[in-house]
């Protein structure tokens, strides 16, 4: 019966998202990954611009609830400057903890994880990541 509660950080990221948008076609070192759909309530795309194993900058597009948009923005902010290996260790749990995501929205957080995973997988396929 209660209004959904949004943490302060969600409000911030939602209204002034970090890394909203995508890179111009042709920018070098860009990998990307997508997940979700309208029916799933969240559709998201991540892009990372890489210099070797290092993420220089991350960008996202998202159609979804405020928690999802804020989650994507929070991830984009964290990813900047990170190594790919470190990035692969980020879990959905961290996102939900940081943004105080309610239990009924954990599905959306999984979709965010998937999109990021797809992006890193793209990096692996394109041999940015050597394991």
């Amino acid at each position, binding site marked *: 019966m209660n209004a959904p509660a949004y943490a302060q950080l969600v409000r911030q990221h939602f209204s002034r998202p970090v890394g909203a948008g995508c890179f111009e076609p042709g920018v070098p070192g860009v990998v990307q990954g997508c997940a979700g759909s*309208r*029916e799933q309530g969240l559709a998201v795309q991540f892009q990372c611009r890489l210099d070797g194993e290092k993420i220089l900058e991350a960008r996202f597009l998202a159609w979804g609830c405020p928690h999802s948009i804020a989650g994507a923005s929070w991830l984009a902010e964290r990813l900047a400057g990170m190594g790919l290996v470190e990035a692969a260790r980020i879990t959905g749990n961290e996102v939900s903890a940081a943004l105080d995501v309610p239990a009924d929205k954990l599905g959306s957080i999984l979709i965010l994880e998937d999109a990021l995973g797809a992006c890193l997988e793209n990096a692996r396929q394109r041999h940015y990541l050597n394991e």
Partner: protein
Amino acid sequence: MTDSSATAKTIYLDYAATTPVDSAVVKVMVECLGEDGDFANPSSVHAPGVAARVRVENAREQVAGLLGARSGEIIFTSGATEADNLAIRGAGLFQVHKGRHIITSKSEHRAVLDPFKSLEKEGFEVTWLVPEDHGRVSAEQLQAALRPDTTLVSLMHVNNETGLVHDIAALGQLCRSHGVLFHVDAAQSAGKLPIDVRAMQIDMMSFSAHKIYGPKGIGALFVSREPRCNLYPVSYGGGQEQGLRPGTLATHQIAGMGLAFELAAGRMQADQQRLHELREVLWSGLQAIGGVTANGELEYSAPNILNVSFQGVEGESLLFGLDGIAVSSGSACASGSREPSYVLRSLGLDDQAAQSSLRFSLGRSTSRDDIDVVVSMLSAQVRRLRALAPDWVK
């Protein structure tokens, strides 16, 4: 106690959810509360009781007056929900020897749907009509559903989500000519559209005060005496309200409802004319954003409600971006959950489109300025969210 500054600055466009109480109504209510007022029990035979009873009977006249009913046909309840329950369960069960087939539509309020479901569980057969005539049930549709064992039809006057208006007179005539009781939920129409229970051939009609600047927690059921409509009560006790609705009569609530109905009668036409014009302004403003659809054609809907789908934006984010504007979304609000509106789905919308819908409902304090602010905030938000969405969901 609460931070009412938030409330003060809000642009309130949710008058179909509830309205503020008219200041003259507040005054009458207060006159019935304190020690120096008419606070006594209206059932008491002593002088203060009689004074309270006079208030109650006066209010009954005021309510009846708006409907072309007689005051003895008005049963006060705790709201439209209770009135709907009393009408549907009370008349359904009273007539069980005549038949067990009852009819309603899928776009009714839950206060109608749920009593129907309860009867269905108890062995009644329910026909759930899907509104086919521009979101409304037509007389032809209803005619086709009537059977010899049909005893009750319940269809609302104005839909609370879309504003769509049923042709009550036509539906009423059909029911009367088939000897079937006709109940109408008029929570959203009383004081907004003209009502004449005789001309419309209505047997029972539900009302709520809080949709027309009266208090919450009080409503009424009109129960026709000519022809006579018989009901069982749904609760039992002190014998008040002709034995149909027990419990101490809440004088201040009833007096407040009475005055609200009387005031509505006086200003209905002018109010609705003004709201109609404001809605036009709102609708053109929203159309300019592009990718918007009105749910329910405007020519068939009450002038104070506008329900709009915004393509390419997710519902919750759309709403969240409208801080400072109070509107309802296409998700069921009562539960705070994100269930898409079954009313919008009954119009053929998919879940996402239903969730990306907003209901704007205008009222006495809505100004041209409010509309302008809302249009500009919405344009900005919708554009921003659309820009944020990946191509493949656009």
